[in-house]
């Protein structure tokens, strides 16, 4: 059993009940038949209460597993319900599109017969079915919601549904026909082929439309196409989020490395003093630090005032450092820097300083000794810190919102905008899903490189 690893410290040398559990765990893997045969020959070893020892130990192991699971279960269920489930719900919402087929069930069926590529308007029965559906929808007041939903795909449909709803309310779907001319007279939008194409294209209960929108594409009768130029903003925003997060990560490496090195190489007393300077920002509220940067970077802020006072900058041309990418990068580098320093520091602490001296005594120059001997040993720390900082940066919302203006915002600000202002929740969910996928890949990489159990705080 020498290859078994114990999870806790085994303080006593004598066998403990813990060792017995380990043995049972190993025995389970073995061929059971052989053991039973063994027992027949030698006779089973009995526990104090007369049951065979093996069965007794097995029961104890089962009990222990049960007890562990019982302790974990409440939290696991809590997290599954209030965290994992909401995330899955969000994933579902990014493809869910039942509103069209639910609000216009007859129209959707009638539209199946119509060829959207023919360039002709649908026949009268589609219009009749549409009026019938709209009558119900107007009574339930769901037609405006549908209009809003379809408006994401084609601008103008929201008002079309709203205005026509008022008229259709007064019609009688059984006797009022034919409706084709009547509807087109109400609003010539119903005489436009693209309106019907949009309804048909987005009638399926599950859609990739939100995901296509999230990468600046859309569904057309001829397949997937790019959005018109003036609506292409999200890919650019994804790109900017990515690039700025990278810049922030590299800035954190550049600033964090010397500090971590100094902390790891100073005597313990002064290192602890300096550590406070790292930990205090780490522990300070995010909003405090963001407001501090607002105070610092404003045109009438501390940095500009100091520069003007020193005469380095003219009062009339104060530097613009806020509400742009520079502001976001500076503030976020400051906020995320401790997350880079702490893992680097914990790695550098374990590197004996004698290695560098040994390299130099063997004739390495300062640079070679650093680059070939010291630096490679610190790479795990850099990797851990970088992934941590990048994951945190890519999903940041508060700081870009306050110091980023319009040029320095991230994709998360767009998600928040779609949740609270434009109410295009499907698109928000799709953007969130893409972001989540990126983060999970990075998280997986982090787990491979560092191991999630090695996350340390403070």
């Amino acid at each position: 059993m020498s290859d078994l690893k114990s999870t806790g410290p085994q303080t006593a040398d004598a066998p403990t009940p813990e060792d017995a559990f380990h043995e049972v765990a190993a025995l389970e893997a073995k061929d059971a038949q052989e053991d039973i045969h063994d027992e027949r020959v030698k006779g089973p070893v009995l526990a104090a209460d007369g049951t065979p020892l093996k069965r007794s130990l097995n029961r104890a192991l089962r009990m222990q597993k049960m007890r562990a699971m019982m302790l974990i279960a409440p939290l696991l269920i809590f997290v599954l319900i209030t965290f994992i489930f909401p995330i899955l719900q969000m994933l579902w919402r990014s493809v869910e599109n039942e509103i069209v087929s639910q609000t216009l069930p007859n129209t959707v069926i009638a539209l199946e017969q119509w060829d959207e590529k023919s360039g002709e308007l649908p026949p009268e029965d589609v219009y009749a079915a549409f009026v019938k559906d709209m009558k119900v929808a107007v009574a339930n007041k769901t037609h405006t919601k549908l209009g809003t939903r379809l408006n994401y795909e084609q601008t103008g449909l929201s008002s079309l549904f709203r205005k026509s709803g008022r008229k259709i309310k007064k019609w009688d779907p059984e006797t009022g026909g034919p409706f084709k001319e009547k509807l087109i007279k109400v609003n010539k939008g119903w005489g436009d082929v693209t309106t019907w194409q949009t309804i048909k294209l987005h009638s399926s209960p599950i859609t990739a439309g939100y995901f296509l929108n999230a990468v600046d594409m859309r569904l057309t009768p001829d397949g997937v196409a790019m959005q018109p130029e003036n609506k292409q903003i999200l890919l650019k925003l994804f790109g900017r989020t990515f690039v700025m997060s990278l810049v922030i990560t590299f800035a954190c490496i550049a600033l964090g490395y010397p500090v971590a090195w100094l902390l790891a190489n100073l005597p313990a007393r002064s290192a602890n003093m300096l550590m406070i300077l790292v930990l205090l920002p780490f522990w300070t509220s995010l909003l405090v630090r963001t407001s501090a940067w607002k105070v610092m970077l404003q045109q009438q802020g501390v940095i500009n005032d100091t520069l003007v006072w020193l005469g380095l900058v003219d009062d009339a041309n104060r530097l613009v450092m806020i509400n742009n990418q520079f502001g976001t990068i500076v503030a976020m580098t400051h906020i995320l820097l401790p997350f880079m320093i702490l893992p680097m520091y914990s790695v550098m602490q374990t590197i004996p300083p004698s290695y560098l001296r040994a390299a130099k005594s063997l004739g390495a120059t300062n640079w070679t000794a650093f680059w070939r001997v010291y630096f490679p040993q610190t790479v795990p720390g850099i990797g851990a810190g970088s992934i941590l900082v990048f994951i945190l940066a890519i999903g940041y919302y508060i700081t870009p919102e306050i110091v980023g203006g319009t040029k320095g915002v991230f994709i998360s600000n767009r998600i928040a905008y779609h949740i609270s202002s434009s109410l295009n929740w499907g698109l928000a969910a799709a953007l969130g899903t893409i972001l989540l996928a990126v983060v999970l890949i990075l998280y997986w990489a982090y787990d491979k490189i560092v191991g999630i159990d090695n996350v340390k705080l403070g």
Partner: protein
Amino acid sequence: MSVNPVQKPSTAFTAAMSAAAGAIAGLLVGTAHDQPTLGVLIGAILIGIVGAALSKVEQMEQAERGTRWGILAVFIIGGFALSGVAGAVVGALFGWFFGWFIFWIGTGRYRAPLAPYLTPGQVLWHYTFRVIAGAIFVFLITPILVVLPLSFNAQDFFTFTPEMLRFDPAGYSLKHYEDFFTNNEWQRSFRNSLIIAPFATIIAVSLGTLAAIGLSQSHVPFKRPIMAILISPMIVPLIISATGMFFFYSGVGNWLEGALGMSKSLTGYIKVILAHAVLGIPFVIITVTATLVGFDRSLTRAAASMGANPVTTFFRVQMPLIMPGVISGALFAFITSFDEVVVVLFVGSASQKTLPWQMFTGLREQISPTILAVATILVGISIALLTTLELLRRRSERLRGMSPS
């Protein structure tokens, strides 16, 4: 290193180093007066001559005190003559620096703490590196330090007024603190934070500690996936958690109000508390499992063999020993909830407005320096938390028989 003999460097060296420092200062002053080249020249020549002259003095250490005061006075007067009070302050800084720098170089004191075999290039790099690292520390700490005095501003500005710079008592006031403690909006949000954070902490700590104890048992099926799920709230970006919770809790809220007949504000609190509890859980799990790694399991067996039932064992033996981990986990969970704004923004309604939310709207819309007063109070709280954590860490190490480093 104390055996390292300190040699007085040559006059030329002292003069050159002083001139270099003078040139940098001259560049600064020169740029301010639109004459950078002239500034560099004057600075280098002036300080270089002073350095050379002082280096010629035989017993340099004995002259130090008086000379440094002299240099300081000359610089203050010179600065004042050049550009008034501001110049005097800058002059005082420069004067103090040069007084110290010339003697530090001139007496060879800079060499004392370093290994004797270092080449001049290595010595230069050593100190350059210190200066760079010092600048980074300044970058880390300045924003926080700047907020503190500004919160006592008598004006409604986000910047230093001339009165404040003159240290005129009229420039300072406690009115922003007064505003914080009397304004209904701020007080209500503060109260909300004080309601939500403790409840979220209690849920996170009680469930989290139990689960951490379960996870630290030797045979836990599916340990890694379980751990990944429990840690996930920390990894998933807040904006995504907030989006998911936004959809989820709007349904939950309707159900609580409709089926259970709860009031709107109560459901609001329940929603935010549950959402914050989930966010705090990973911190509790991580800190408590870290403490349990060093926990000697034979203690529980000893307790059991002496007749204690599992509940007694837990509360009388295990709990006191892992308490430091539990408390630091609780502090993390508390600060997570107390500091959280994205999720509460999405899940809560206006009546659950917390302190960070209020600060966020304040920063985005109507800028009021009360935010800085609140920020100062929060910095105070974080210093208190940091101290508590450090004391706990020492206690934990003492309990485990390790000496605090």
